[in-house]
């Protein structure tokens, strides 16, 4: 994990910042120079609310290098309320309790670290929206 790369991605990792198409209103994450819906090039930064629902998930038992100490952990596809899907770990939840459709919200957490003296990487994860009246109302 190189430092310039992670510095460059700070708005995405820390703020869930993508783009919104000024022509057709479509939202994008990651940010894009060209709108995939209308091919327009007039896009502006957009910060997502971070609220969404689990579209699919997996519980990882054999992790890639650098993630071994976290197994078993949950990675999910999350449908954000703006109509965009993102890939992220779920946190603060027992893998047994995760379900498709579960309301979740973005939180900033440690994604990983490169050994004792290396970079510590932070970024978005999602946790259940517990006691969130809107979440419960939506989840019928």
């Amino acid at each position, binding site marked *: *994990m190189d430092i310039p*790369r992670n510095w460059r*991605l700070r708005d*995405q990792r820390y703020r869930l910042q993508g783009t919104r198409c000024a022509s057709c209103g479509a939202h994008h994450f*990651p940010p894009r120079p060209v709108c*995939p819906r209308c091919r327009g090039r007039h896009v502006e930064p957009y910060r997502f609310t971070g609220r969404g629902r689990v*579209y*699919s*998930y*997996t*519980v*990882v*038992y*054999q*992790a*890639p*290098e*650098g*993630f071994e100490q*976290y197994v078993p*952990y949950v*990675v*999910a*596809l999350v449908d954000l309320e703006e109509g965009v*899907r*993102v*890939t*992220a*770990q779920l946190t603060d939840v027992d893998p047994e309790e995760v379900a*498709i459709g579960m309301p979740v919200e973005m939180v900033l957490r440690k*994604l*990983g670290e490169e050994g004792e003296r290396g970079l510590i*990487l932070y*970024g978005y994860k999602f946790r259940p929206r517990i006691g969130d009246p809107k979440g419960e109302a939506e989840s019928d």
Partner: protein
Amino acid sequence: MRDVAIVGIGQTPVREHWDRGLRDLAVEAVLAAMDDAHVRRADALYVGNMLSGTLSFQEHVGALIAEYAGLEGIEAVKVEAACGSAAAALRQAVLAVQSGQVEVAIAVGVEKLTELASKCTTNALAMAADADYEAVMGLSFVAINALLMRRYMYEYGVSKEDFAAFTVNAHANARHNPFAMFHTPVTREQYAAAKMIADPINLLDSSPVSDGAAAVVIVPAERAREFSDKPVRVAACEVGTDTVALDNRANPLWLKGVERSARRAYRRAGVEPQDIGVFEVHDAFSIMAALSLEASGLAEPGTAVRLANEGAITPTGQFPIATMGGLKGRGHPVGATGLYQVVECVLHLRDEVPDAVRVEGVQYAMAQNIGGSGATVITTLLERLIT
């Protein structure tokens, strides 16, 4: 544009080849294909490979393999499209000969995955995904496929155990292929008890990490008989793409890259899905076999797993797949796989497969090679010329 044909094939056994490096494997396959076509020279070499730089610390393998295969001086270049690299190289060879710029082209796919510790291989394979937005989340390539499989089970009401049909068929067929990695059958009970890697994908859903190389010789169809008594026509070799990251697809269960590539191939060859006698599918994971059958037009959405359980995918079924073991049973040396599939299709059309996996009356055989979770797809349709 002129018609082209395959007049020579070569493959190494798929194994953990501790005693052999990337160049040895590639050269063995190239020389076998050249011997099969009775050629001593070629005009161009296209090398399909994904991870030579990462795992063997060797790039520039186009010129290297040409040199060691005794072809020093010819046009030679590497083509990379993750696990779709080999068929992407074939596409270049086909275009080169079709155009008239090249008379004899060789496409070889080669991969050496067992050079480093398995952790390194796992991380390297994840490079087929989006590094900034998928891999960084701790998502292995297996986990990406697990996301697909979980959603498929949810949407279509399919149980995990139902996917066993793909693994059972692949291993049953691989037994008869001397080049396959596995020669032991797998039962449904063994499948159900296999170790979980990324739930719901277990070890027996997954193709094995392995090494190997496969090659073909391509010439103009009108000259094919100079080289071979059993030439096979390349009726189509078409590429389609989709988003690299799975999350950027509106419906991840519909592989648009597969649909685009397969439709282009059917149109080019003038065939319908039901004309295909054998389908060498990209079953890197059992879920990919199901999704490929659906997006290729052989099964309606959500029905592939049921059809597999009814026997449709066996050599005597409605659409035989993985007849020589597929990626699951033959093995999946990623950047070589697409040409193993093509070599196996050629064997069918030459009537050179073992009786146990022979399919009656095959006029067209289809090989479909997929890069990543469906971002690059190459569908090759091969047609019987001999009768």
